[in-house]
């Protein structure tokens, strides 16, 4: 029971990497299929569709950053992994924004990217505009990342 704090914190780190990474994997997989379809018909569009394909991959990186910060703060990566249950629960809560927002925003961003690829296939000159639509979804993943970073860092300095 006395190590339950670490268990909760580790669960938070795992969820951040797991859910955000799953979202990115689904998203990049989906955009990858659409990108392959575009390149089958017009190989010259490879560079452009590759950028659109990679956009939903960022959420997985954000999840990894939070997981890494949490693991580092709780001492799993070196130090004394001994924190209170309350602190462990706080870490778990801090990881949830990027875990959940990362999962759903990556899938939504993939859908927007696939639509943008449709635009790109018909109007290659509109590449800049076609990038904007999926990037708008990124805003919410970044907001969730910020909340998670601020929370994880703030919890580290708390004395509970």
């Amino acid at each position, binding site marked *: 029971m006395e190590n339950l704090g670490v268990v909760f914190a580790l669960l938070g780190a795992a969820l951040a990497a797991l859910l955000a990474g799953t979202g990115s994997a*689904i998203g990049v*997989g*989906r*955009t990858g*299929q*659409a*990108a*392959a*379809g*575009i390149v*089958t*018909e*017009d190989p010259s569009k490879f560079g452009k569709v590759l950028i659109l394909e990679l956009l939903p991959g960022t959420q997985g990186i954000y999840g990894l950053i939070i997981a890494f910060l949490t693991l580092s703060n709780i001492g799993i990566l070196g130090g004394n992994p001994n924190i209170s249950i309350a602190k462990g629960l706080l870490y778990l809560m801090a990881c949830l924004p990027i875990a959940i927002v990362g999962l759903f925003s990556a899938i939504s961003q993939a*859908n927007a990217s*696939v*639509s943008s*690829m*449709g635009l790109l*296939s*018909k109007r290659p000159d509109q590449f800049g505009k076609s990038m904007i639509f999926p990037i708008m979804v990124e805003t919410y993943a970044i907001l969730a990342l910020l909340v998670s970073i601020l929370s994880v860092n703030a919890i580290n300095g708390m004395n509970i």
Partner: protein
Amino acid sequence: MAKNLYPYAVARIRSKELSLLNSSMMDQLIGAKTEEDCLNLLAGKGWDTESGVDKMFASEQKKTWDLLSELVSDLSVFNVFLLKNDYHNLKAAIKLRCTNTSMPSVYILNGTVPVEKIQAAVEKSQWDLLPEEMQSPAQEAFEALLHTRDGQLCDFILDKACLCAIEKAGKASDTEAIREYAERTVAAADIKIAVRALHTGKPLSLIESSLAPCDSLDTDRLAKAATQSEEAIFDVLSTSRYADAIDSLRESPSAFESWCDNLIIRKIRKELYNPFTLGPLAAFLIAKETELKSVRILLSGKRNGMPEDFIRQRMRELYVV
């Protein structure tokens, strides 16, 4: 879930939509002086015009189905578009047997049931060789033609069976574009049957048995109206979602034919903005078929020296603008 999204297929179709004829190309075709000029323009668009007009259409159709077979592992999802070919083949086989003639060129090869199978079923009167829903109408149509020698009665039976099969296939589909196509096709055919029956003075019992069930049309009222007057038919249509068919029906039969095709094209146009599902694939297929129909009319008009306005009136709306 992801399996039914078809992102690869839709992305390829988005690129292929660029090869469909757009309005400026259609204007050029209509403005061309001769059929030969039209064929030259089509050749520039990648159409195979060198082997003759009939082969050109067959080749374009084959290209579309080859593309779809690359994109979808099970082509039976598009059966709704091929059912009319099956029933055409069945009709041809029955008529050829009853008249004891042979004419292999009348068959359409692209159907859900192989032509040989239909021929064998009709030749041996072995109806169980056919798919279940074709067996009973095939036997009924064959016996009707054999006993009455009335080709029109045979057509009525098989046309209705075809429409019922399209309606059933549409309802079974989870793709909106296919459901819309089936519903609008059946409704348009019912309206056409009602108008034709009125002009030829068919009895109510025959009209009722010819109209296929359709959710968006009150077929009982339509059948009764078809025994009364054109205005009675218009009255039935005015209370349905096909009220704007009235103007085209007043204008001419060919205007109504155009209206039927345009209705479907307008309904499926939203698939241009749908990045997932089978909808854009089905829409592309419908768009290509409608495009081929327009080009057929156009070439025939040019061949017969029809004026531009005459041809333009008969052109169908385009899927891509």
